[in-house]
């Protein structure tokens, strides 16, 4: 990860999901689209599972932007931005995880342990099909460029706000 401990611009982009399970591949696809485009001080991590490890990934970071798939709700490819301020994701936000420990649990555990970055923003893309071995649906694949663009803009915004906070301090 780039940046030194305490650098106010440390932002992590965490792209989540299993690329071999249909629309759960949105995280990995956005990571590919972001390749080489993140500004200095921002780092990228791709996790297909084992989300407990996120607590290590974002250690020392000021902010995290997560990209994950959301459960089907009738509008595949629909993008939702969630600013996690209270330590929990909304109850109706069923992010997809094949195991019991998903992003919502990682965020809640980090807050309980005082290991959460100051800002966590989640970009959740609604999926439709999550079968093993399946490709992403056309609707979700079509959302990748726009998600990448929004994530880049979010990273720059978080870096500016972190820098401003640092200057105030």
């Amino acid at each position: 990860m780039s940046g030194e401990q305490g650098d106010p611009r440390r932002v992590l982009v965490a792209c989540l999901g299993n690329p071999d399970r249909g629309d759960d591949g949105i995280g990995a696809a956005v990571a590919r689209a972001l390749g080489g485009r993140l500004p200095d001080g921002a780092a990228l991590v791709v996790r297909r599972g084992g989300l407990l490890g996120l607590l290590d990934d974002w250690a020392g970071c000021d902010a995290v932007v997560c990209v994950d798939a959301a459960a089907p709700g009738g509008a595949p490819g629909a993008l939702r931005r969630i600013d996690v301020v209270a330590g929990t994701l909304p109850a109706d936000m069923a992010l997809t995880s094949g195991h019991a420990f998903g992003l919502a649990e990682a965020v809640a555990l980090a807050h309980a342990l005082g290991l959460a970055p100051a800002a966590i923003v989640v970009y959740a893309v609604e999926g439709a099909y999550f079968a093993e071995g399946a490709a992403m649906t056309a609707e979700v694949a079509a959302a990748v460029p726009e998600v990448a663009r929004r994530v880049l803009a979010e990273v720059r915004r978080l870096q500016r706000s972190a820098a401003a906070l640092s200057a105030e301090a």
Partner: protein
Amino acid sequence: MATKTIRVDYLARVEGEGALDLTIRDGRVASAQLRIFEPPRFFEAFLRGRAYAETPDIVARICGICPIAYQMSAVHAIEQAFGVEVGGQLRALRRLIYCGEWIESHALHVVMLHAPDFLGFPDAIQMARAHGDAVRNGLALKKAGNELMRLLGGREVHPVNVKPGGFHRLPTRAELTAAAESLRRAHDLAVDLVRWVAAFPFPDYQYDYEFVALRHPDEYPFNEGRIVSSRGIDIDIAAFDDEFEERHVAHSTALHAAVKRRGAYLVGPLARYALNFDRLPPSVRELARAAGLGPLCRNPFQSIVVRALEMVYACEEALRLIADYEPPDAAALPVEPRAGVGFGCTEAPRGICWHRYEFDAEGTIRTARIVPPTSQNQPSIEADLAAVAGTMLDKPDDVIRDRCEQTIRNYDPCISCSAHFLKLSVDRR
């Protein structure tokens, strides 16, 4: 006739998907069924026709928590079939990567999945608010295990560096020296963890299990040994089918295993500990005694203490192996396929993981059989559930349900591996 059903429709804090149906008739437990409905995954079927060299990478996908167990049992079976003996530092490195798997798997189960049961929390997140240091230490232990798996396996989930004959790449001394730093800290955390879990309130329950584990002449078992039991079984791993059989049951997509002559048996930490206490180093034996355990523990709820002790052992053993490390000349021995049958049996964190493969002359797999630990433990889980529930039938259903879930978690069941997880229903009439 009074009948009552207590049902857990989806058991939490286990790997995979299953349910429990408890039927109570006239004040006694009529049946306790662990229903495993996770679909079969057909690994044995799609291994057929694949090249022997692909096996470690395929079987690693059976489990994200214990892939090393599947890789190790597979490579040992391949090497046995092709007449290759891996010794020296390559063998030591295999024990070392297994140490990493035990540490990360046990840390996850002990702290994140099982401890909340004893302290009255619904999950580790709620527990973390009251026991933050314990959870942080558990996560640090898990990280140390994962680091070892990443160093030797290339990555922590579904490692890619294991191959028949050895490894694709050897670690350097400097890499292992750096890992030792982290393991020394992990060792101290594991000792603290033993003391923490030993003070938990344990239900007063004992069961006379037939313990089954590997036993090696000198070592606490990981990769090698004879299959032994507390009731006299002492066989080469190739003779597994002489003593054990797998049975289909209607309520589970995982096969149930049994000792042919007697029935249910227990694999995993309690069995390993009971059958190999004398193979633990004096430091770990002393720690066990200080934690209130003798050389034999029949209370399955105290398996959490044994898992913590095994983490201490794995840290000590890893440090010993690293201190003795001399890089071997080659990362792997040459492997030449030939027609034949090979067996592998190693100690996964949850118990023995037995493999049998038949190869043709080119090393293509003709048949494969894999007997994972959780399917072996299913009959014992059901026996425990009937016995534990039987002592508390006057209690409200939700109290019975909680204790039954805790009982299942005593086994750290990996349903995904065996289905091969949990809903609980109690039928009380």
